[in-house]
């Protein structure tokens, strides 16, 4: 081995290229990745799912599986070319010189071996320890990761430990043989925030004490900045930016990095949480655009230089490396296309639509009993503020949307469009202006489009019906619309049935836009689409609403998606309004137990359809705060703040106090 010098870093990756074999083709996933890591230094790799982070780590370990292959470049560990090592030599490196902390510790521990056995075998294999020495060493390391009751843990099986304890065990295991490099793959994913913070602090101290170098991987830029000295941001298999951790947070250069930072929830407490990372999708491997890979999602994209050819890394203004010629330029414009900025303040946004105690009853099949699909629903849609109506299947979201659009009439309550009640007017009985003002896009494009007509014919028809008879203008506006929804004109000559799902939904949106609506109601606009086109359609809707001063009302069962883009939320449960109000308020301080459960679970809480009470609060069977009065009387609706209403018997202070203690989880089995 060559002696280590300053010029000879511990780990050096030189223009590494990796490809996976898929259906006989080699799909490249890493492109010319060059990184180096000095002794005792910590480097964090950040990137979204699929950007090639884990591939990089596994390539360093030369453990890519049968499908993966290094197609170019070299990796030196401690001056030795990893490619030159035999399997036996690699084994002497693994665990001894390079320790690994795996993602999801619970799965990385063998379920049928005790913790003690899994720790001592490392010392026995690499240090030649006797049984007793190995056991002592294991105990010492378990103590060093602050695990209590080491004797019990040595004899325990993984399933007997908590997630945080398992993660600590995995760290201890990586440290047993005192490696000089620690590889960490998402070291805190799956841990709650408090535990994760503790683990990060622990790893930092341990690494500092031992002068150990670290290569850490995560999708969380803030986490990596806390853990590491330097951070490299990866996008679609390339390093797009590399810099000191503090510099990258303070002066991000690449538009993608800036997008990541803008999107990340502020570290301090509540507020508008944006979970959708950067809008759009990374190109799938092997399907990269010419020029900058980030181009299709970049707000600063221009054909030259971005689309012209491969973009190389260069020195950035803040002293790092960045792969964008425009980095460090105008930092003011939002660098990420389509990211929805918050709508106007409530006070500044006039009311467009007011729903007042709206109700809808259907006669059931026999015609004798009535089914209540909506009851007593009130909320406000303000111009420019995107409203999301959320609720589980069967909560009456679509019924509500159909009433708003005039496909059904309400059986009680009022629906005020700019002050005029249209609750019992079907679309054909509304005025032309009223009809045009509210348009709808359905989950199922079959409902929006006539499959036997060409797209062009349907859009032209709506254009004419919207009341502008001059044909020339219509032709021109048709072309504009197709362009707005990014459909080629050629697609307009086809029938709806001949388009892909994503194209059909775009055509449906274009048809709705043809009426120049003030309000666009979209019922689950993306749930029938492939994930890869979902983000693109969401983005399209949001940018259209901005460009055309069109207010979006989106119906969805997907709160995690909605919480990142909506300004106002309306939560329904079994046809009743549960809570409505500004998204920030509902997400940071939900009042109703159902909203709290929704927010805490970031998914819908378990409310199996078992018994629906025939009176009182319909949520009572699942409610952790249920009181006697709840099953006797329907909860009254109260107004808590501007546009904030809730239907629950709980006094306000109780609900607010309860939140934050994890009480919202009690409703789950």
């Amino acid at each position, binding site marked *: 081995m060559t002696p280590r010098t300053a010029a000879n870093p511990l780990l050096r990756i030189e223009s590494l290229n990796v490809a996976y074999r898929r259906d006989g083709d080699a799909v490249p996933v890493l492109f010319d990745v060059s990184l180096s890591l000095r002794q005792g230094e910590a480097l964090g790799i950040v990137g979204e799912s699929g950007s090639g982070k884990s591939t990089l780590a596994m390539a360093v370990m030369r453990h890519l599986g049968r499908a993966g292959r290094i197609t170019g470049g070299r990796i030196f560990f401690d001056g030795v070319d990893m490619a030159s090592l035999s399997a036996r030599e690699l084994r002497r490196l*693994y665990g001894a010189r390079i320790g690994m902390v*795996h993602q*999801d510790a619970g799965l990385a521990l*063998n379920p049928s*071996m005790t913790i003690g056995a899994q720790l001592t*075998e490392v010392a026995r294999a690499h240090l030649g320890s006797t049984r007793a020495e190995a056991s002592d060493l294991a105990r010492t390391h378990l103590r060093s990761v602050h695990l209590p009751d080491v004797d019990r843990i040595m004899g325990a*099986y993984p399933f*007997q430990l908590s997630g945080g304890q398992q993660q600590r065990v995995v760290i201890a295991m990586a440290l047993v043989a005192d490696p000089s490099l620690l590889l960490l793959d998402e070291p805190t994913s799956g841990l709650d925030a408090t535990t994760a913070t503790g683990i990060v602090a622990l790893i930092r101290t341990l690494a500092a004490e031992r002068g150990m170098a670290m290569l850490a991987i995560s999708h969380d830029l803030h986490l990596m900045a806390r853990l590491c000295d330097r951070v490299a941001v990866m996008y679609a298999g390339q390093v797009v930016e590399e810099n000191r951790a503090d510099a990258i947070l303070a002066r991000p250069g690449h538009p993608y990095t800036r997008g990541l930072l803008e999107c990340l929830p502020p570290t301090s407490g509540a507020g508008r949480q944006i979970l959708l990372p950067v809008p759009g999708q990374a190109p799938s491997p092997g399907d990269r655009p010419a020029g900058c890979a980030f181009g299709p999602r970049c707000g600063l994209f221009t054909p030259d230089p971005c689309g012209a050819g491969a973009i190389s890394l260069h020195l950035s203004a803040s002293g790092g490396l960045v792969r964008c010629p425009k980095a460090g330029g105008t930092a003011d414009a939002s660098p990420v296309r389509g990211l929805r900025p918050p709508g106007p303040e409530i006070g500044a946004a006039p009311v467009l639509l007011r729903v007042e105690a709206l109700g809808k009853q259907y006669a059931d099949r026999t015609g004798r009993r009535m089914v209540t699909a909506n009851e007593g629903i009130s909320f406000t849609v303000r111009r420019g503020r995107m409203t999301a109506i959320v609720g589980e299947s069967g909560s009456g979201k679509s019924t509500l949307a159909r009433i708003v659009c005039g496909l059904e009439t309400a059986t009680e309550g009022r629906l005020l469009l700019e002050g005029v009640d249209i609750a019992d007017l079907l679309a054909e009985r509304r005025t032309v202006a009223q009809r045009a003002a509210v348009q709808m896009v359905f989950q199922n494009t079959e409902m929006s489009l006539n499959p036997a007509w060409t797209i062009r014919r349907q859009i032209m028809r709506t254009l004419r019906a919207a009341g502008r008879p001059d044909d020339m203008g219509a032709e021109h506006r048709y072309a504009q619309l197709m362009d707005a929804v990014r459909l080629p004109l050629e697609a307009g000559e086809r029938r709806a049935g001949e388009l892909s799902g994503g194209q059909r939904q775009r055509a449906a949106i274009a048809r709705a836009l043809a009426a120049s609506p003030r309000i666009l109601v979209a019922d689950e606009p993306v749930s029938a689409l492939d994930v890869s086109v979902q983000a693109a359609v969401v983005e399209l809707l949001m940018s259209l609403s901005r460009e055309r001063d069109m207010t979006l009302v989106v119906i969805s069962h997907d709160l995690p998606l909605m919480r990142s883009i909506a300004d106002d939320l309306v939560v329904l449960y079994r046809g009743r309004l549960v809570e409505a109000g500004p998204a920030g308020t509902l997400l940071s301080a939900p009042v109703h137990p159902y909203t709290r459960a929704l927010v805490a679970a970031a998914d819908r809480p378990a409310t199996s359809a078992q018994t629906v009470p025939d009176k009182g609060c319909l949520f009572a069977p699942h409610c952790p705060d249920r009181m006697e009065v709840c099953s006797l009387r329907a909860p009254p609706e109260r107004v808590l703040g501007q546009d904030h209403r809730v239907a629950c018997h709980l006094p306000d202070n109780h609900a607010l106090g309860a939140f934050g203690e994890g009480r919202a989880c009690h409703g789950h089995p």
Partner: protein
Amino acid sequence: MKRIAATLLTAVAASILLFLLFELSPRSVAIATLGPFATPEQQTLWLQAHGYMQPPQVRYCRWLGHFLIGDFGQSRAFAAPVSSVLWPRLGHSLILVACFFAITLPVALPLGIAAGLREGSAVDRIVSAIAVATSALPPFASAVLLSALLVTRLHLVPGTSIMTEGWDWRQVVLPVLVLVLSDVGYLARITRTSMAEIMATPYIRAAILKGMSPARILFRHALRNAMITPFTIIMLQVNWAIGGVVVVEAFYSFHGIGTLLLQAALRKDLPLLEAATFVLVMIAGITQMLADIGYAFLNPRIRLS
């Protein structure tokens, strides 16, 4: 302890069921024993002589007592004590099963493990091909084929396993081979799938990246977890092989417990039927108990909760 109790409980339940099924109505027992032409007086006399006039619970206890000391009564079909017929037959079946497993396990398990270790390799493809070919062949077909080859053409072994002149090892070969052939591929495939699944788990990757040797990864990390599924299957097959392979026994006139049960049922030989069923139920109970104990060994989560 709990498992032993459970097994005993199964045995008691099985015995009660048997009793209710066959012995509850004394008259039918008498008819079955004395034949359809006995007069009612004869039947009554017989019933009195054999204590059938007492209340059922008393009769059950006595019946069970006899069973427990191995006194199963007199077989009508064989005109001999049931035990003198039953035990040798069971012995034959047990030897058959023992030979079957003694060949199947050492072949199927290592093959499956080797195939699962390197999914997609040559070994894997060969094992899969053999598995598909052999399990597609039903036992009677392989019985015909094997007889044609080994008996008719090569004259290696006798074509029947009737063993009129006492136990003859050469006569066991064919039935065992048929059983092995019908099962070895299946078991190898189960083992392969299980092994491949385990080798793809994050904890095996973790063990590799801890620098453990291939042998240690196989024997210490993978094998125990990978054996859970094959073990379940093997335990189920013990019962299948002991009692269920009437086809093979019948084809070779092998005197095992499967054909015995069949004969007893056809000839309405109640004591024999009861005894054979009871013994088979007991064997099933014992394998279940062994399976549970084996599970607990393989899976600490079961052992500790």
